[in-house]
C-alpha cells in the first residue's frame, strides 16, 4: 500500500504543478513509513519538503496555499498527532468555502496513518475518524487495499474540498486478518495488491462489496475489512462484506441495497465505541431499512478505554468477537 500511495502522489506531482507534498520527515528521508520516499529526489525540494514538528503549522500552511489555488497533500506522522492541527482542520479548512461564499476554497489532503495492531501503545494506535466525520465540510476516506489507496488518493488530491485521508498502518505492508501472532501476508499475494501504473481514480463516496452474501451485511473499513473476512470464514455465515472506503460522503445506496436483501447488519470498527462512526451507520441503516430488519443491529468496536500496549489483542476487535456478533444476529 505504501508504494501505491507513493505512486498516487508521484502521478499528481508530475501532472499538476500546483500539487505540493510536505510534513515531518517527509522530504529527504521520505516519511517514517516511507510513503514519500524518492519523491523529493524526483520532484525537487520546492514540491516535497520537511517541516518543523508543528501539526498546526503544517495544516495552517496548507490552508493558506490551498486558498490561493495550490493543492497541498500533507502528512501527519500518526493520526494520534493530528490534534494540534484540529483547529486548522475543523474550524478553518472545513469552512473556508462556505464562510467566504466561494471566494476562497480549500482543496487540500491531510494524510495520516491510523489504527492499531502494531503494539504502538496509546499514541500510535488511535482511530480518530469520527472526530472528522462529525464536522461539516470535510470528506473522510480510508482505503483497505493498495489498488483503492492509489485511486482514492488521486481522487482526494483532485477533490475541490478538504479530504482527511486515513491510512490503516497495520495493512501498509499486507492484509491483516487479526492473527494474534501479528502475522500478515504481503500484498503481492493479494489480488487487490496489484496497482496499475499511471493515473486512475476511485471516486469518493463509492463503497465496494468485498464479498457477496445473503444472510447478513457487514459494514467495515480499513484494516477491519480483512479482519471481518476472517471472521466470516470463522463463523461460517453467508455474509456480505461492504468496504465503505469513504465515510463521508457515504454510499448509502450500496448499504441500503445490501441490508434490504439480508435484513441483518453488523458494523465493525477499531475506534472506540461511544460516539464512533458505527453509531452513525446504525442510525442510517435503521432509517433506510427499518421495515426490512430481522435482527437488532450490532456494533463491534474498540472498548471505551485508552488504547493499551500489552493488552493490544484484547482491545483490537478480533475475528472471534466479530464472529460472535455474526452468530448472534443470525439467531434472531
Amino acid at each position: 500500500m505504501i508504494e501505491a500511495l507513493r505512486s498516487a502522489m508521484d502521478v499528481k506531482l508530475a501532472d499538476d504543478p500546483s500539487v505540493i507534498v510536505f510534513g515531518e520527515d517527509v522530504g529527504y528521508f521520505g516519511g517514517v513509513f516511507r510513503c514519500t520516499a524518492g519523491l523529493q529526489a524526483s520532484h525537487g525540494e520546492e514540491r516535497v519538503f520537511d517541516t518543523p514538528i508543528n501539526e498546526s503549522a503544517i495544516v495552517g500552511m496548507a490552508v493558506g496555499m490551498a486558498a490561493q489555488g495550490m493543492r497541498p497533500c500533507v502528512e501527519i506522522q500518526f493520526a494520534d498527532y493530528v490534534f494540534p492541527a484540529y483547529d486548522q482542520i475543523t474550524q478553518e479548512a472545513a469552512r473556508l468555502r462556505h464562510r467566504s461564499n466561494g471566494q476562497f476554497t480549500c482543496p487540500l489532503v491531510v494524510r495520516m496513518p491510523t489504527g492499531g495492531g502494531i503494539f504502538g501503545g496509546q499514541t500510535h494506535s488511535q482511530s480518530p475518524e469520527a472526530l472528522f466525520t462529525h464536522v461539516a465540510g470535510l470528506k473522510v476516506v480510508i482505503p483497505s487495499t493498495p489498488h483503492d489507496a492509489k485511486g482514492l488518493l488521486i481522487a482526494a488530491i483532485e477533490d475541490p474540498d478538504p479530504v482527511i485521508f486515513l491510512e490503516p498502518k497495520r495493512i501498509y505492508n499486507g492484509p491483516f486478518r487479526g492473527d494474534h501472532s501479528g502475522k500478515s501476508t504481503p500484498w503481492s499475494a493479494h489480488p487487490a495488491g496489484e496497482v496499475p501504473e499511471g493515473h486512475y481514480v476511485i471516486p469518493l463516496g463509492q463503497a465496494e462489496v468485498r464479498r457477496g452474501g445473503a444472510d447478513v451485511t457487514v459494514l467495515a473499513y480499513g484494516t477491519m475489512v480483512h479482519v471481518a473476512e476472517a471472521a466470516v470464514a470463522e463463523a461460517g455465515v453467508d455474509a456480505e462484506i461492504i468496504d465503505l472506503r469513504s465515510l463521508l460522503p457515504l454510499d448509502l445506496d450500496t448499504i441500503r441495497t445490501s441490508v434490504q436483501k439480508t435484513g441483518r447488519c453488523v458494523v465493525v470498527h477499531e475506534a472506540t465505541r461511544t460516539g464512533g462512526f458505527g453509531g452513525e451507520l446504525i442510525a442510517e441503516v435503521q432509517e433506510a431499512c427499518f421495515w426490512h430488519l430481522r435482527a437488532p443491529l450490532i456494533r463491534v468496536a474498540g472498548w471505551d478505554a485508552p488504547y493499551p500496549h500489552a493488552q493490544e489483542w484484547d482491545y483490537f476487535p478480533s475475528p472471534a468477537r466479530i464472529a460472535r456478533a455474526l452468530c448472534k444476529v443470525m439467531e434472531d
Partner: protein
Amino acid sequence: MTAKLAFPHPPARPDQPPDFSNIVVPPAGSLPVPPLDLEARDARALAVGLVRVLDDAGRAVGPWADGIADLTGDDLRLGLRDMLRMRAVDRRMLNAQRQGKTSFYLQCTGEEAIGCGFQRQLEQGDMNFPTYRQQTLLIAADYPLEALMGQLYSNEMDPLQGRQLPIMHSARDYGFFSISGNLGTQYVQAVGWAMACALRGNGKIAAGWIGDGATASGDFHSALLSASVYLPPVVLNVVNNQWAISTYTGVAVGKSETYAARALGYGIPALRVDGNDYLAVVAVSRWAVARARLGHGPVLIEWFTYRAAAHSTSDDPTAYRPKDEALAWPLGDPVQRLKAHLIARGEWSEARHVQAEAEILDEVIAVQKTVEAHGTFVDPKPISPAEIFRGVYADLPPHLRRQRQEMGY
C-alpha cells in the same frame, strides 16, 4: 529579485564525510557565572555562547568550575556510575528489543550527562516533565531498575501494568511525570506545575524537558509565554541533539541563532551549555535550580549535544546522516570526558573504570534476569485484560462495566 523559499540542510548526508565545521566550540571557562536574578537582556552572551567547564586536557576551568569546587571525587564517581549504568541499561534493552523480548526501545547514547547531572541537583518533591529520551533522570534518581525494566517488558513488574509503550515511564515518587507520546504538550504542563508550587508555597520546583525538534510545537511557545507572564519556579530544558528523527535541527531553529536565544524574545534568560560535559551540566543545573527555588523566575537551558544512537528501534539513521557522524561530534563523549577528568584529578584509573563497567553490567544483567522471569514479549505472562477498564475514570461507569462483561470478565 523575487521571493524564494529557504530549505535548511544538514552539513552532510550519508554519502558525504561528517562535517561539523559550522559549529563554533569556544574554549572552556570563557563565560561568566551570572547572578541568580539574571535578566534576559543581560543573558545574550550566555544564550548564544556555550558554557563549558572541562577543557581538552580534562581539567575543570573557569568561573563555573569554581562554583562546583566543593564536589568531591565521590560525587563525580557517582556521576560517572550513573552514566555507565544508563549506558549498560540502554545496551541491554536495545538487545532485548532485537531479541523480540520487548516491542520498542529508544536509547539516549551520548546524552547521558544531561539528565544524570541535572537530576542530582533536584530535591525530593521537585518534578520533571521528561520526554521519552530522559531515562537518565530515573537512573540518577535511583529509581529501582526492576520497575524501569518491568515497564519496558510490560510485565507484572511494570508499575503501569502494560498500559504504556516501553520507555513511557511514570514515577511520581522519583520526580518523574507520566510521559505522553505527543510532543510538546508537557512543556507547558511543567509551567503549570511550577505555578502550583508557587501558589501553594511548598518550595518545590518543576523542570520541563523538550527536544530540539519539538521546540517547533505550539506548546513550547505556550510554555515560554506563560512562564514569562507568571514567573513561576521552572527550569525549561531544551535537549538539542541535532536531529529530530531524520530532520536536521536547522528545520526547527530556522533563523534563530540558538534555541536559547529564542527564550530571550520572551524575556526569559537562557544559557547554552555543552551537554557532553558532566561538570558544566552540574554547574549550570545547580545555578538554575537555585535561581528557580529562590524565586527569581524561569530560565531556559539549551543542552548542546548529539544523538549518537538511532532515534529508536524503528529507525535507521544511515538513511539520512553520515554513518560515523557521532565520532566526529566536536564535543566528544560524556563518559569519556568525565573519566578523563577523574583520571587527571588522580581520582580514577583505567583499571578502576574497567572494573566499574563490569560490576555495573553484572548488576544490570542480574536485574534483567529477575525481571524477565516475570514475562517478556516472547514469553508473556499477560496482565488481565480487564485492566484496560480500570483507571479510565475514578469509578467504573455503567457502560464500561457492560463492556468488561462483554469481554468476559
